[in-house]
């Protein structure tokens, strides 16, 4: 309870304060992920989910390894869509969940990745491209990103909206 906002209900005890604070500060998607994380680590489900997930993660890492036997870098979109408005998709948990679907695999496989601004969509919103490299090969990722940046000619700047 050292950082961020603290909520103390009237006449509440210490536990009430903990619970109110934990509930107040996070949005729905964050809470959902905390709940899922708590669930898969709970005593009865550890083997069914966490252990299984570790095996799947090993398979994902192996898949990348096979790809890097043939290529030096992988190029993907950073996100499935351009940025959407605040609260616009709050009723669609799957769309919310898929938002980082391109960014997660590199993290799961323990690989260096970078997102570089690449252009604008029809509405003028920025789009990013992601470069993923071999484990511990940050240098190649940075070299490629620099080359990309120098040639993409991305000059758009957001208008001041505030």
């Amino acid at each position, binding site marked *: 309870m050292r950082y961020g906002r603290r909520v103390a209900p009237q006449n509440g005890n210490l536990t009430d304060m*903990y619970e109110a604070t934990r509930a107040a500060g996070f949005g729905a998607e964050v809470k959902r992920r905390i709940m899922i994380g*708590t669930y898969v*680590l709970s*005593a009865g489900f550890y083997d069914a989910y966490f252990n299984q997930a570790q095996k799947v993660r090993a398979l994902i890492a192996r898949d990348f390894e096979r790809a890097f036997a043939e290529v030096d870098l992988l190029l993907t979109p950073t996100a499935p869509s351009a940025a959407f408005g605040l609260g616009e998709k709050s009723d669609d948990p799957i769309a919310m969940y898929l938002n980082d679907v391109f960014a997660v695999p590199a993290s799961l496989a323990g690989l260096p990745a970078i997102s570089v601004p690449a252009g604008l969509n029809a509405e003028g919103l920025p789009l990013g491209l992601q470069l993923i490299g071999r484990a511990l090969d940050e240098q190649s990722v940075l070299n490629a990103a620099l080359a990309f940046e120098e040639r993409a000619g991305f000059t758009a700047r957001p208008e001041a909206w505030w």
Partner: protein
Amino acid sequence: MSSYRIHGATGEWEVVIGLEVHAQVTSAAKLFSGASTEFGAEPNTQVSLVDAAMPGMLPVPNAECIRQAVRTGMALEARINPWSRFDRKNYFYADLPQGYQISQLYHPIVGEGEIEILADDKDESSAKRIGIERIHLEQDAGKLMHDQHPSFSYVDLNRSGVALMEIVSKPDMRSPEEAGAYIRKLRAILRYVGSCDGNMEQGSMRADVNVSVRKPGAEFGTRTETKNVNSVRFIMAAIEYEANRQVDVLEGGGNIVQETRLWDPDKAETRSLRSKEEAHDYRYFPDPDLLPVELTDDFLTDCRASLPELPDAKRRRYESVLGLTPYNASVLTADVTTARWFEAVLDSVGEEHAGRASNWVTSELFGALNRLGRSIEDSPVSPAQAGELIRLTADGTLSGTLAKQVFEIMLETGQDPGAIVEERGLKQTSDTGAIDKVIADVLAANQDKVADYRGGKDKLFGFFVGQTMKAMQGKANPAVVNELLKKALG
């Protein structure tokens, strides 16, 4: 086999006990940080950024703590796991800044071992082997202080992150006496190894006590766990109370619920703290900040080579090589400080006098320390001085009585025994001329008794010895007195 039974209304009940002992590892720094572990410092003066769980801080394992856990495992004849790993045990409490304790659930550093105990230390037939399930390393939490402010509690993080070994026994004990013997033996071994100071008053060692009851030979019953009991006496009392309570509940038609209980030393009873339904789910998972611990063969060889002679081996050697009585051997090896003191005496007087030295330490020295309320660490007499005193007895300079007098003076003045003997003329005399002269006086003064003795009253011999010794102020050699008296009395 223990014959300890609870006598219930429906017959006899057997008690099944397992202990989880938390032993603070002797190390200068904490398990994952460089902060000091010294006891008794001002609150929050021994807290690194890691111990306070500041964002971005990373734990670094302390090799000394790993070494101590491995040495302890070896002393308990346990399997050492060359590959182990740290897990996070998650719970939210004010004394735990990280929000999780780093511990070892899935892959502990030490596996199965065992300890031999004597439930009754005067009875070799009460020997029993108690299984060790595992030992793992984990962090201690901070300490909450509730008595510093009327409406706030304070947190002292000095203890946060200090290394603990959790030593888990199998449910192999069957009586409070066996549990007491197990704790004492475990404490002795830890102190010999030097991996824990065993100081229960300062909280360096505390136990969670698991108790269940069953009809002899039946399946295990449901157990309760009484947390954080911090003396051998309390552990034994908590077991006795808890076993009787469970028998009462079962015989009253109730069921034992699996729960965590608390020992209240003032009321000498256990109380429910939380039931299984309220039990925390700790959501263990491997700590991603720490690599697995992999032990090399060289490291393991060094650990084994650094182990001292352990209490059981020492006790057997004292009996078979030094020829001590089983009782003396057991008393002198029970604690490492006593054993070291005794061995320092032997260094001074020589092993050929081990029997005499063992008797002197266990009776004269222990008696005096007991009387003075001192421990052997701050004995007023040094092992070298004790050795000199024993040598003076062995070579006939001092009789038993004189040695006691000299020892009393040593306790008061701290002087060396040789100096005391010289200064005060306490040397025993074997001068037959002087003794003969005194005997003649004694016999002359007690002619009636001499006649009685010669008439067959053999028991009067002791009287003549006493009179002679008294006249010589206790300095006569008793063997010489006996011999000369026999001759004089015909």
